[in-house]
């Protein structure tokens, strides 16, 4: 294959892979700390994108410069979803801590439906796909058959930075230490004086903030968002987290990139590219049968 086309596939796959990895990191954080699967994660992602869009529409009325609009959308979108994640944890997840895991799974699934239908019904014309503003520079460079756009590079870099910062936060800060301690042994962590509730709320806020970032990145890249965008992204993100090894951040990154790689490969191989998701999910199922605890779970003794 021509190196230019190969590089083009690689860049396309990387943009998607980083988006999936951001979602997968959220799933892995929630599971690592509290052993719960938050199935409203995809819908929180979607709500983050819609919150940013609503902010943009407001800022546009005030003729705010594009860079300032983008900064405000990004910051407030992420903060709003972090807050929502913490509230969801406080009022829906923590009260069910002692009940069977299925209850938490169901309640977050239902909460996701409420968010999704809420946006559909109450956002103006919420049923229709919404054009998302193109706020990133559209400069592109042609190297042979590769067309490298600056917005793709910015999104890959931002996503990667967010994951690196999350990793550093968990590894290098006091709160990160608390998160790791709770992930390893809740009882001992409590005995050592760690504020369990605060730690868990912080983890949910962090994961949900990353979901918002992923939603906004998706909007900026495809310049369109819709109320059901979180469904597929949520399923893919969850699959990526599971195949990488639930509880492992490295696993989430590997899972996210692997899924995007499989989708790209499926689109190249099959004459009907609609089969690319079937192909990607089939490979994921086979990998899960081969390594039920995930690709990287065994190598990482420490969760989160």
């Amino acid at each position, binding site marked *: *294959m*021509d190196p230019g*086309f190969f590089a*083009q*596939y690689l860049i*396309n*796959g990387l*943009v*998607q892979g980083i988006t999936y990895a951001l979602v997968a990191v959220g799933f892995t954080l929630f599971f690592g700390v509290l052993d719960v699967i938050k199935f409203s994660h995809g819908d929180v992602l979607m709500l983050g994108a819609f919150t940013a869009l609503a902010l943009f529409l407001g800022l546009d009325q005030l003729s705010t410069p594009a860079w300032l609009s983008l900064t405000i959308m990004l910051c407030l979108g992420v903060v709003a979803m972090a807050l929502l994640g913490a509230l969801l944890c406080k009022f829906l997840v923590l009260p069910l801590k002692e009940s069977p895991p299925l209850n938490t799974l169901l309640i977050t699934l239902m909460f996701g439906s409420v968010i999704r239908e809420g946006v559909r019904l109450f956002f103006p014309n919420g*049923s*229709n*796909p919404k*054009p998302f503003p193109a706020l990133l520079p559209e400069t*592109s460079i*042609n190297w042979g*058959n590769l*067309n490298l*756009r600056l917005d*793709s590079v910015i999104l890959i870099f931002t996503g990667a930075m967010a994951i690196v910062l999350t990793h550093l936060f968990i590894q290098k800060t006091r709160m990160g230490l608390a998160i790791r301690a709770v992930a390893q042994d809740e009882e001992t962590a409590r005995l050592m004086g760690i504020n369990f509730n605060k730690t868990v709320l912080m983890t949910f806020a962090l994961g949900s903030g990353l979901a918002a970032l992923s939603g906004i990145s*998706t909007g900026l890249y*495809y*310049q*369109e968002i*819709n109320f*059901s*965008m979180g469904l*597929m992204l949520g399923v893919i993100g969850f699959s990526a987290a599971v195949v990488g090894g639930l509880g492992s951040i490295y696993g989430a990154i590997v899972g996210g990139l692997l899924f995007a790689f499989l*989708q*790209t490969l499926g*689109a*190249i191989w099959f*004459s*009907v*590219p*609609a089969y*690319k*998701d079937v192909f990607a999910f089939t490979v994921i199922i086979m990998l899960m049968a081969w390594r039920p605890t995930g690709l990287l779970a065994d190598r990482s003794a420490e969760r989160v």
Partner: protein
Amino acid sequence: MSDKLKLPNIFIFLICCVFLIGCSDQPETIKITFIGPLTGGVSAGGLGGRNSADLAISLRNESPDSNYKYELVPLDDECKPNIGVQVATKAAADKNIVAGVTHYCSAVAMGTVDVYHKFGLPVIVWGAVLPDITYGNDHPEIHRVNGTMINQNMVAAEFMTEQGFSTWAVIHDTTDYGKGHFKYFKKALTERSGTILGTFGVNPDQQDFTAELTKIKVLNPEVIYFGGLAPTGVRIRAQMDKLGMGQVFQGTSGIVSDAFIDGVGELAEGVLAFREGAPTEKLPGGKMFMRAYEARDFNEPAEAYGAFAFAATDLIIDVIEKVGPDRTLIRQELNLIREHESIIGPITFDSHGQNTIALITKYVIQDGSWVLWEDSEYASGNRSLK
């Protein structure tokens, strides 16, 4: 004693009232359903169709010659076959609804034809173009005022080869609509000198097309043919730009809407598409329709198929005026329609209920609007597609 008489007196009074109301000069209200996508990605076409059907009803209700009062029952199929079957069943099961003006999306129309047949509800399709909707069954209830995608793709293949294009990559959605377009375009193209270098069936809800487009970039066709609806078309055209692809983008009737131009913005320039019938303003009754439509101050434009929804509703009303509000009589009368005057020209239903309209119009987007090819600067040579 007087107390005992009071109650029967009240009953007698009420019965008299009911009788008097029944004998009043108020015409009977007849319900006609309109079904189309009122929400979702292609709702622009559906809302335009609903408004146009509503206009036909209002104009007839204002006419002193009308024997009945008409009421439109609009239902939303969301352009989804499962929702379409639900609302079609709801309408068909309602005995007060005597006929329907139904469906913009072919996949939905295909799913609902059996429902109308089962319940005996006569319907006229106003926008869906898949041939099998009328030709794939023998249901006497199903009619269609707009043309099919067979003629559309024949004209498209002929026109594009005449313009000197010889290689295509095809992207089509995997619904009946997209697959149908691909089938008939391929058939028409192979009869000429065109070559399809690659075909890509995609999910209509798919968001990322960069892998498919990169593969097309490798094939390097002159034209990208897209068989699908506006929302998917918007994504593909926008992502072509992200990959630096300058191929001509050729669509079908499914993208002929203002929503496509709004979604794509400046990248819409030079996009081609083909549609059955003539542009609304050039239809026999197009000017009257547009004047009446504008006078109503609807919130949405009539869109490309609005005139067809108007014509279908008007035809149903004409039939009801003639034979009365009875499903069987309406169906029988519709099957006899020949050279019936309408705003889209004379309507003649063949043995499958298909209007034998064959006129196809070529469109190109120029300066942010759909322009008739013959009137465009591309046809005059001032602008170039390549």
